[in-house]
């Protein structure tokens, strides 16, 4: 029987799988069989719903009931109550922290996290089973390819893409239509399309979610791009760290081949296209397009000087279009619904929507897709649900290791490519990490530099040597040995690296330092002049002290491993800073809570 009265969607994204979604799925299937409901209710494994913080997530349709943090013991209740008797299990539903009313949200469409979103790239994620091609087809899958092949010439496709104003979602923001046009006009018989799925920015995982939740849309989009530029072969370069995405994309390619949606003479149009997956091997720099090309060719993933651009000389020396996953993900809908539909979202210079990965000190960590031009405040406080534990918002970091920080003063900024760049940050691939007042900004900059130093490929000197020197200076500052001169040198070196590095990695590597220097200079100065870390994070600059109110109970003294605490019973105790190793063991022992880190 194909017709089911109810569908239980279980999220099969990496986040939920890590919190046990597969077990939950299996238990649902078993419980349904045990109750004789397996012919009426179907369990569907889908891609990421975006609200990873609340995983494992299950949604029961047609009601759209949104169950979060589903545990094994909850499965039976959902089956008994909801699926058998039709009573929604209210206490297991997702509690909407951002809602003004305390009503429990019974349907997914009522949850604030989703209300302000506009899902285009993620339209099918969490709705279809990514391992079944028919489900993708049911939601108009491959219709755009059909339209392009039967009603449009390659030039029509390129013109529609240009008209849509779509800009590359991987970070650069280069107009996609123009890129396709350049490649189509490059001379040569053999051309390639490639998909950059080497999503390396720490804290960004939208590409992974699209590949896991809707792999067919990438295949369809690459086929459309291939038709537009005159290519017959496509490569997807994907991180080996994403095993679920690799597997599902592989299944999708096999299904498309079997159906004749890949291969020879697609849909009777005479157009041929085949696809191949290439795995990355753990090198961040391979997200840079020329390095990616080198890696596919079987070399060390080192960037090459541009020009020649990939549009002229790409994979195996042939003209190549390279777009990232999220860019491809919106292509079928642009072709099917038209450029005018796409430009109805977003801003004039940055049309459409953008997916952000919210992370760090924020209540609703997960993936959100919003129209460009939405303010940071709406994303962080309305959709993201604000900062946990009642702490204070300090900054939001966008663009990963290539981006920078934005502060409270920027919360009303509408997000698009140009506003973020103007403020010294960048869109990047869409990582958005929120930090609160307990995070040290100098240490945060050091963290990113540590990343770049590790991932610098070593080809050009400014990046290889320069970032290392910058890291040393930052370490000097966080350990309390910095001088004001170091701050000046740091800035000077940062600009030198920006100007002289070969590829995007080096050119943007100093951004986290420059933007924290710009907006949080007082914190740097506190480290250098006062030898203090205002956020209390840099261990070397902390001291543990007993403030007023000590009752002389000796509890701290007894626990200190190095006998650094002295004082008589019922007298004030003191910590000898020369002996203290800052282990913090005394802090929880104090009944009056007067031992503090400063």
């Amino acid at each position, binding site marked *: *029987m*194909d*017709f*089911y*009265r*109810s*569908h239980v*969607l279980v999220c099969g994204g990496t986040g939920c799988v890590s919190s046990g979604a597969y077990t939950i799925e299996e238990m649902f299937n078993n419980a349904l069989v045990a109750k004789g409901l397996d012919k*009426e209710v179907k369990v569907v494994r889908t891609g990421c719903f975006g609200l990873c913080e609340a995983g494992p997530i299950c949604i029961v*349709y*047609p*009601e759209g009931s949104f169950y979060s943090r589903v545990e094994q013991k909850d499965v039976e209740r959902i089956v008994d109550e909801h699926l*058998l*008797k*039709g*009573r929604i299990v209210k206490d297991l539903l997702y509690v909407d922290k951002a809602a003004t009313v305390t009503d429990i949200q019974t349907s997914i469409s009522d949850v604030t996290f989703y209300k302000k979103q506009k899902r285009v790239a993620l339209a099918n994620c969490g*709705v*279809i089973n990514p391992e079944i091609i*028919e*489900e993708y*087809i*049911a*939601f*108009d*899958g*491959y*219709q755009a390819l*059909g*339209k392009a*092949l*039967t009603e449009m010439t390659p030039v029509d496709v390129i013109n529609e893409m240009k008209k849509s104003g779509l800009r590359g979602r991987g970070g650069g923001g280069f107009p996609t239509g123009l890129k396709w046009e350049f490649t189509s006009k490059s001379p040569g018989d053999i051309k390639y399309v490639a998909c950059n799925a080497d999503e390396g920015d720490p804290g960004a995982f939208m590409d992974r979610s699209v590949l896991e939740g809707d792999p067919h849309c990438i295949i369809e989009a690459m086929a459309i791009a291939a038709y537009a530029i005159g290519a017959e072969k496509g490569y997807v370069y994907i991180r080996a760290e994403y095993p679920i995405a690799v597997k599902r994309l592989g299944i999708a390619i096999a299904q498309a081949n079997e*159906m*004749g*949606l890949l291969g020879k*003479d697609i*849909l*009777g149009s005479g157009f041929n296209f085949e696809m191949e997956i290439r795995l990355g091997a753990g090198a961040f720099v391979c997200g840079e397009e020329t390095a990616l090309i080198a890696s596919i060719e079987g070399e060390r993933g080192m960037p090459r000087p541009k020009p020649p651009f990939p549009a002229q000389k790409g994979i195996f020396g042939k003209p190549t279009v390279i777009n990232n996953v999220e860019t491809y993900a919106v292509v079928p809908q642009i072709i099917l619904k038209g450029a005018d539909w796409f430009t109805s979202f977003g801003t004039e210079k940055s049309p459409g929507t953008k997916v952000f990965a919210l992370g760090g000190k924020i209540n609703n960590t997960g993936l959100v897709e919003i129209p460009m031009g939405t303010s940071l405040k709406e994303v962080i406080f309305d959709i993201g649900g604000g900062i946990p534990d009642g702490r204070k918002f300090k900054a939001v970091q966008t663009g990963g290791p290539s981006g920078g920080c934005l502060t409270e003063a920027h919360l009303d900024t509408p997000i698009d490519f140009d506003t973020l760049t103007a403020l010294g940050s960048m869109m990047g691939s869409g990582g958005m990490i929120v930090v609160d007042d307990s995070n040290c900004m100098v240490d945060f900059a050091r963290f990113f530099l540590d990343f770049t130093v590790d991932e610098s490929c070593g080809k050009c000197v400014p990046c290889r040597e320069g970032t290392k020197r910058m890291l040393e200076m930052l370490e000097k500052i966080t350990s309390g040995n910095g001088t004001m001169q170091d701050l000046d040198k740091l800035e000077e070196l940062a600009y030198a690296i920006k100007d002289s590095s070969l590829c995007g990695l080096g050119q943007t590597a100093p951004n986290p330092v420059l933007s924290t220097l710009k907006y949080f200079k007082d914190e740097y100065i506190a480290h250098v002049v006062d030898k203090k870390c205002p956020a209390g994070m840099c261990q070397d600059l902390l001291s543990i002290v007993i403030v007023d109110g000590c009752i002389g109970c000796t509890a701290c003294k007894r626990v200190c491993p190095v006998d650094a605490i002295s004082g008589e019973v019922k007298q004030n105790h003191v910590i000898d800073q020369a002996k203290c190793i800052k282990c913090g063991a005394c802090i929880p022992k104090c009944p009056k809570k007067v031992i503090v880190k400063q």
Partner: protein
Amino acid sequence: MKSLAELTKLRDESLKRVDLRKERKGTRIVVGMATCGIAAGARPVLAALMDEAQKRGLKDVEITQTGCIGVCRLEPLVEVYKEGEDKVTYVELTEEKARRIIAEHIVNGHIVTELTIGAAK
């Protein structure tokens, strides 16, 4: 698959299986399936409704269950919500009556008056 027409045909067929997850529109048939309803025989009624809807290839029809509707003595009980119409409550159903509701009310648009709650004593 060798043409766009074939693709569109497959889409239309596949759509039936995932329709449930799309935005809610069209007709909703709700079967009372609390303990009382199940005891009175709501399960075969539900199965008959689904079977009939499936056979006729009905789109935009959602068949779902709910808890106790409150008039246990008239179970099995089914409510039909059609767009632009008031709710119709059918009572004391059997498999045959359920199939009639699909054929007459859902497909042809004629309310089966003698099966409604108003006709029951």
